[in-house]
């Protein structure tokens, strides 16, 4: 029996969030409320319904109505049935507390207004047809439980198929297996001597050999990853504890502790649903940290999102536009990060037209773990395969095939994040680690169980019974269980002697756990579906025997047969641009006008509207950042935290990325970004040898010279690693940055996002950005990179094409050495980034309320972005003591006022201040 509970403000008084929405829609009478549908076991009595209603309405000025159908003029938005409602479990829990049995719950949002515009407004801004359904009348549900059924595996005899038939089968049902790959599957069948292969094997190999899992693009271009790994190995930085072969890189910290770092992207899903795509990007990377070594605890997160211009429509009909994606991004980051309880170290949103078809949705995290647990674990034969966390549903399975699954199988083509599940197992994993209950673990992410089981089992061999996997639906075909990308799941290797203890720990944390198989000394990857082989029987079985009864076998294949060669493609050097455009000569008024434009650009402007919604202090270890300023809250150039209780040792994180520079010259941009991130660390107070980095490549695959640029960037990075001894210890490549749209192919620039992690033994030595005293002198230091190309001001002036400055690495060495040696002279220091010196000055004024008297100014001196440099504050007496290797150039003097004064004219106008404060919000809110 399903009952509906509508929970709304009493007397029609709208809450602030609803009033705000009504204002933005110009609907004064907007009402918005939540409808909870609850499927009870049997028929609950009226007293039970009243109890449930009382809990749902347990808030001041709230009223609950039961079973009131949707009113005329109201529009209801609900998730499709395949999209499992995250609140369902809590509804069931509350009912259980009240002594009422419930099977499932569902939450919907209803909008009501007399305005005829209501429906269009909801559809255009609050409805995602991919995962939601819209109701003008009360929906009729037979059940709230997602539906699915078991289908026996399809069988294919490949032995007699010609190339055409093989190719066709490789692309059938949404798969993307090439002819060469299908020939290899044919070879597998022949080698095994089987009568057929199943769709389970085809799907498993489709995922295993995909670019996402196998990095085929990078392999085809000459083992690009191994070039970066070899460079790091050559450097032999003693801080490296683990790099590139685990879910995150691990960097030595102090006193037996280590730091893990990882960043990853969720670009494709974020184009379809900004909310769920961004939700799962953060959830996914946090899970990577949890699955590093024998589990690390996340201590900080960061995120970066590049979208198209908010004012432009989406280039694919039906897709959300950038403005909507921006709003959904903020909501998702807020909901996942805050709920998970990890401080936001850095967040930033960029608007660049190349990302209008497919955003750059990057999420990152760092974690803390003991050095003794830093190495990836190895399962031992006999260990149990234990699946923990969320249920497995029919979601996130290579899109097209999911939608063709039929009317009796509920699907969702994007992954659905449920942060509560992950919060629950976060501390349970640490407890399991400390109790010695884990041989190994990994997260269940892209390609689902297939990737997790397949990879972790490769050490010895593994078998699983998919019938034991707890499902959101009544049943699912074997391959869908294997490929589902349902979120918030982890896979553990638990020794038999610890299984009972592990179960107790997980139960205590209210984490769902199921033994689904065993690691085996077979060297084989073996998947079957046997509903009558229970978990109890599996646990009681012999550790070194595969159960005799296997129901239906999906595949049983030696790992050796699963490897496939990737065809190598030769590429030449990338083309390099030439010619540097000149900055124009501008008078004071023109400089002030340009400053207003620059500080109002999203690269410089306050993004307080977004990042004030992200918890930056949870865990109580944030020492510096992500904002500073006594007058205004200004973004810091780095974040520092002290994650070890009682220790002053600090982790330092900063990032570097500028898509406009990668537009111009990806190789030169790579060098500048690497050096900028490194120089930022050294400015903060970190020694060069204590810095490592994480790379996230996002490159196109249909634009001109994309291969050359990609190889050029990788080789450049490898060279930088060797030169500075700063290793990349983690990274990801996304090589699908070109999209067919209604307006043609849209490609992102070939680019790499760099995240740097450093460490210092004591937090007190870190240099802050806040100016300290009027009378002190501001000095620009660092390398000169005067090209306007890739700069904010250059864009405003139309100077967008041409070459970037070429940095001499020996000059960078000299600068970094001098910077490290003269930090005692610096009272404060701000890294130069977007907006150049002017951007740094404007934000300094806003943060401190102190003004600047400029010595002189030109467009170049103010707006060139000398990214391997900084604006530092020194006392007048110390200016002459700055070493020549810093290339010091006096910018001006701090003054008691609060402007940027040039010969009596304040360049920092009220309009510019207003632009810095409000332009970002105005564009997206």
């Amino acid at each position, binding site marked *: 029996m399903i009952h509906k509970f509508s929970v709304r403000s009493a007397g029609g008084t709208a809450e*602030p*969030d609803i009033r705000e929405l009504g204002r933005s829609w110009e609907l004064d009478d907007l009402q918005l409320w939540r409808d909870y549908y609850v499927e009870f076991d049997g028929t609950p009595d009226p007293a039970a319904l009243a109890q449930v209603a009382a809990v749902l309405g*347990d808030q*001041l000025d709230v009223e609950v109505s039961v079973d009131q159908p949707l009113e005329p003029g109201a529009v209801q938005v609900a998730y499709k049935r395949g999209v499992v409602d995250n609140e369902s479990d809590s509804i069931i829990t*509350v009912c259980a507390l009240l002594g009422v049995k419930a099977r499932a719950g569902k939450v919907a949002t209803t909008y009501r207004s007399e305005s005829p515009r209501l429906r269009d407004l909801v559809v255009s801004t609050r409805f995602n047809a991919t995962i939601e359904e819209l109701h003008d009348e009360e929906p009729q549900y037979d059940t709230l439980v997602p539906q699915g059924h078991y289908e026996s595996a399809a069988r294919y005899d490949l032995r007699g198929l010609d190339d055409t038939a093989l190719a066709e089968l490789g692309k059938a049902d949404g798969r993307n297996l090439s002819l060469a790959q299908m020939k290899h599957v044919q070879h597998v069948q022949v080698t095994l001597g089987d009568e057929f292969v199943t769709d389970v094997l085809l799907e498993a190999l489709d995922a295993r050999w995909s670019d996402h899992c196998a990095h085929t693009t990078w392999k085809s271009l000459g083992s690009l990853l191994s070039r970066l790994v070899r460079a790091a190995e050559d450097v032999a930085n003693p801080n490296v504890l683990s790099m590139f072969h685990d879910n995150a890189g691990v960097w030595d910290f102090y006193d037996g502790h280590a730091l893990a770092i990882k960043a990853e992207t969720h670009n494709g899903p974020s184009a379809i649903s900004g909310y769920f795509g961004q939700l799962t990007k953060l959830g996914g990377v946090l899970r990577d940290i949890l699955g590093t070594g024998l589990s690390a605890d996340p201590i900080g997160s960061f995120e970066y999102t590049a979208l198209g211009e908010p004012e432009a429509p989406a280039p694919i009909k039906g897709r959300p536009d950038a403005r909507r994606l921006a709003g959904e991004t903020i909501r998702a980051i807020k909901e996942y990060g805050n709920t998970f309880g990890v401080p936001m170290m850095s967040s930033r949103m960029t608007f660049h037209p190349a990302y209008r078809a497919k955003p750059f949705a990057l999420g990152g995290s760092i974690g803390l773990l003991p050095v003794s647990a830093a190495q990836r674990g190895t399962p031992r034969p006999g260990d149990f395969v234990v699946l923990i966390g969320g249920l497995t549903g029919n979601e996130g399975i290579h899109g097209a095939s999911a939608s063709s699954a039929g009317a009796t199988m509920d699907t969702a083509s994007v992954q659905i994040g449920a942060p509560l599940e992950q919060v629950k197992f976060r501390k349970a994993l640490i407890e399991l680690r400390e109790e010695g209950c884990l041989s190994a673990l990994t997260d269940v992410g892209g390609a689902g169980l297939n990737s997790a089981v397949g990879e972790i089992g490769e050490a010895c061999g593994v078998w699983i019974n998919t019938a034991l996997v707890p499902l959101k639906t009544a049943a699912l075909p074997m391959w869908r269980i294997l490929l589902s990308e349902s979120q918030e799941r982890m896979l553990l290797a638990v020794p038999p002697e610890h299984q009972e203890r592990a179960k107790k720990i997980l139960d205590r944390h209210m984490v769902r756990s199921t033994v689904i198989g065993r690691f085996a000394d077979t060297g084989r990857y073996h998947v079957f579906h046997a509903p009558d082989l229970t978990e109890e029987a599996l646990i009681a079985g012999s550790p070194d025997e595969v159960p005799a009864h296997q129901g239906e076998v999906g595949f049983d294949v030696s790992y050796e047969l699963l490897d496939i060669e990737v065809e190598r493609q030769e590429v030449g050097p990338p083309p390099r641009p030439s010619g540097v455009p000149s900055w124009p000569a501008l008078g004071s008024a023109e400089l002030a006008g340009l400053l207003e434009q620059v500080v109002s650009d999203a690269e410089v402007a306050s993004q307080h509207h977004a990042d004030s919604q*992200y*918890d930056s202090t949870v865990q109580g270890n944030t020492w510096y950042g992500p*904002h500073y300023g006594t007058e205004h809250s200004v973004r810091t150039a780095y974040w520092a935290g002290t994650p070890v209780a009682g220790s002053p040792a600090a982790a330092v994180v900063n990032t570097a990325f500028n898509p406009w520079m990668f537009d111009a010259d990806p190789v030169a941009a790579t060098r500048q970004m690497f050096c900028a991130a490194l120089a930022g660390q050294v400015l903060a107070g970190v020694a060069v040898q204590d810095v490592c980095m994480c790379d996230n490549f996002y490159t196109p695959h249909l634009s001109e010279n994309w291969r050359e640029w990609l190889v050029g960037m990788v080789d450049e990075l490898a060279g930088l690693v060797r030169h500075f001894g700063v290793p990349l210890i983690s990274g990801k490549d996304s090589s699908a940055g070109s999209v067919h749209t209604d307006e043609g192919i849209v490609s992102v620039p070939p680019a790499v996002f760099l995240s740097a992690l450093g460490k210092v033994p004591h937090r007190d030595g870190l240099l802050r950005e806040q100016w300290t005293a009027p009378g002190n002198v501001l000095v620009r230091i660092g390398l000169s990179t005067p090209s306007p190309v890739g700069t904010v001001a250059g864009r405003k002036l139309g100077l967008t094409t041409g070459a970037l400055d070429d940095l001499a690495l020996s000059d960078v060495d000299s600068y970094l050495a001098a910077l490290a040696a003269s930090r005692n002279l610096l009272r404060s220091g701000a890294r130069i980034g977007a907006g150049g010196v002017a951007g740094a000055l404007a934000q300094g004024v806003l943060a401190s309320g102190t003004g600047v008297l400029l010595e002189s100014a030109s467009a170049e001196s103010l707006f060139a972005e000398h990214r391997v440099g900084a604006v530092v504050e020194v006392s007048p007496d110390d200016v002459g003591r700055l070493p020549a290797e810093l290339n010091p150039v006096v910018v001006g003097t701090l003054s008691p006022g609060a402007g940027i004064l040039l010969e009596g004219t304040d360049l920092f106008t009220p309009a510019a201040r207003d632009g810095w404060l409000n332009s970002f919000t105005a564009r997206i809110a």
Partner: protein
Amino acid sequence: MKPTVNVLYLPGTNCQEETLAAFAAVGATPRLRFAADLLAGDERLDDADILCIPGGFSFGDHLGAGAVAGALLRSHLADQFETCRTRPLLGICNGFQIAVRGGCFGNVGLKVNTSGTFRNEENQRHVVDEENDSPWLAGLGGQTLVFPCAHGEGRFHPGSEGASYRVALRYEKESNPDGSFADVAGITSLDGLSFGLMDHPERAVDPEVRLAFFENGVRAVR
């Protein structure tokens, strides 16, 4: 004998470690009380000198912030929770929301922030009420304490019935982050034993501010 503190750990609690650290730093023996153990009857909520309900998003804030946890305290754990209310009780952020739903402060409410969304303020300023003689506030009256604000549903609403709470903290003038009635940032029960606040002293950078309330609470039960 060190005073004992039970720190309620629910699915979705995420501020337990800094809370445990704060109590430990002022000489108490804090320990987590897991919801599963409480429901199974393996542990009790009321076997310590102090109960603390820390911050987080218990049960994912599903059905409303603190709603599921509040139902838990009013149903299966009602007797134990009543006992806890006769001793010092501290609710921080989500713990405050839970304590409100648990009935610690009468008919008050904590509603969606005026901004309609979560607000993060790293250096929020709070003024301690000078009239409130709650043990949690001893010696702090009139002081301005800076510690982080991070919540989405903290707009204090006094309710329509007679006041069954006392003001403990107010946001400094012009800095009310959530639109709370009369800038109220924290309250105590009439007897002063229960103290609830939305913001997070346990995260303060200044160690003295970080520990001030915890030190008072522990001193009261020594």
